[in-house]
């Protein structure tokens, strides 16, 4: 009986902590957005720094993962299509899968692992070494100073990186289509463009697939930056606390990406 009570108590405590953290993350996101008009220009230097950290540093990884994801997709799906005599349709599938789903998700996963974890560690270290308290003593809002530039940077860079990853994935798919499936590049490109142009809906100049992917990327950028910064700000208890903050940030980002990703797809394609 005692152990059941203890288990329930632990679970209840964990649930309360999760709700508390979610509320905190939403709170700092709202504060960051509210500070944006007044502080964006004043903090332009920090925003530019973060654009580099969030956009240029992870670019090689996104490029390589994008290229090879396209190649794997082409290989796996292409073999099945070739058996059905439909190898030339490979680019239709690659375009839709990459732009709509895989590109944004894959990019957000890479950014979580590389940039989000670094954000949680950096801010977490500041929190446990009283640097956040020091900022408050200088009447500097830590959300405006630390969180807002990171949120802005990831919101801008996630869709751009995702687009680059998708384009490289299509190129990788094209290489496999030519070398393994004997699909001519001209046919591959024509089918790819046709599949994107023939979307049932257009959003301005963008086909639905690309538009959906970009919306997802922006939302993913918001999620990764907010969750990671919130975990860092909540860090306490020295080096162990920083490690816990990084783990919390990565796990929560992964969970939220998959859950929110589903609901965005549902909203667009139900």
């Amino acid at each position: 009986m005692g152990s059941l009570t203890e288990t329930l108590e632990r679970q209840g405590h964990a649930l309360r902590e999760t709700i508390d953290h979610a509320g905190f993350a939403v709170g700092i996101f709202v504060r960051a957005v509210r500070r944006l008009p007044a502080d964006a220009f004043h903090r332009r230097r920090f925003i530019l720094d973060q654009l580099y950290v969030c956009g240029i540093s992870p670019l090689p990884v996104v490029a390589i993962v994008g290229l090879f994801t396209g190649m794997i997709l082409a290989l796996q799906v292409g073999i099945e299509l070739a058996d059905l005599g439909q190898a030339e349709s490979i680019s239709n599938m690659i375009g839709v899968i990459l732009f709509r789903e895989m590109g944004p998700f894959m990019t957000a996963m890479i950014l979580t692992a590389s940039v989000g974890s670094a954000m949680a560690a950096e801010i977490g270290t500041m929190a446990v070494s009283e640097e956040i308290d020091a900022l408050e003593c200088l009447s500097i809002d830590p959300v405006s100073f630390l969180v807002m530039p990171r949120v802005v940077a990831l919101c801008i860079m996630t869709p751009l990186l995702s687009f680059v990853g998708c384009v490289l994935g299509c190129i990788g798919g094209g290489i496999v289509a030519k070398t393994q499936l004997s699909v001519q590049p001209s046919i591959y490109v024509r089918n790819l463009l046709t599949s994107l142009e023939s979307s049932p809906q257009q959003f301005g100049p963008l086909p639905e697939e690309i538009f959906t992917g970009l919306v997802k990327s922006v939302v993913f950028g918001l999620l990764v930056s907010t969750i990671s910064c919130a975990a860092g700000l909540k860090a306490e208890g020295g080096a162990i606390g920083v490690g816990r903050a990084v783990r919390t940030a990565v796990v929560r980002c992964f969970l939220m990406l998959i859950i929110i990703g589903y609901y965005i797809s549902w909203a667009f394609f139900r």
Partner: protein
Amino acid sequence: MIELIDVHKSFGEQHVLRGMSFTLEQGQTLVVLGRSGTGKSVTLKHVVGLLQPDSGQVIVNGVDVASADAEGLREIRRQVAYLFQTGALVNWLSVRDNVALPLVERRDMPSEEIRERVDESLGSLDMLQHADKMPANISGGMRKRAALARVLVQEPDAILYDEPTAGLDPIMGRTVGRLIQEVQSSGERAAIVVTHDMDLAFQVGTEIALHYEGQLVERAPPEVFEQSSHPVIREFLRTRERPGKASP
């Protein structure tokens, strides 16, 4: 200028402040001695509103810190600066940018004036030649001086020093003590120095008090404090007489 009235603060089961009361006037340098973990830093954090009391009042220049709005709190933090134990410099900014930070954030000061005040502040602490270095590339003593420059550039009415000599060798500790003496020499500023460094306490304090069981006890000028019969104070004083042979 700073007044604590019957302040109580608990963290879970731990009752850290138990009716803490004291006043501090301009020109006074109050040294607060106490063993580690007794809540000395907690007391300082109440003064600048980083912590709120469970009960009691913290008054700075006539304003109740707990009930101050955002603008009021900002004004209190302009008047009372806090020197953190580690310096707490922003790691990705150079020493110069760190010192300029509080002025840049006010957003109403011309950049030329900011530069002049930063150079003056760094120069007064012999840090001008290290102004363009990053905090990670300077020694602990220099970081403390840079943090002190960041405090001084704000021209505060009072400074809270949290373990200013912690982690420094005795020579650098004495240097920091001299810096505090210089800063306080004008007689216009109030200061609270939290420490367990007895040499520093007697070097800079106009009054010394013991943080004991959540209250300040035995507050007195150094020459009187030295005669106290309080057992904890006697133990502290023995560490001064026989450095390195303190009781555990």
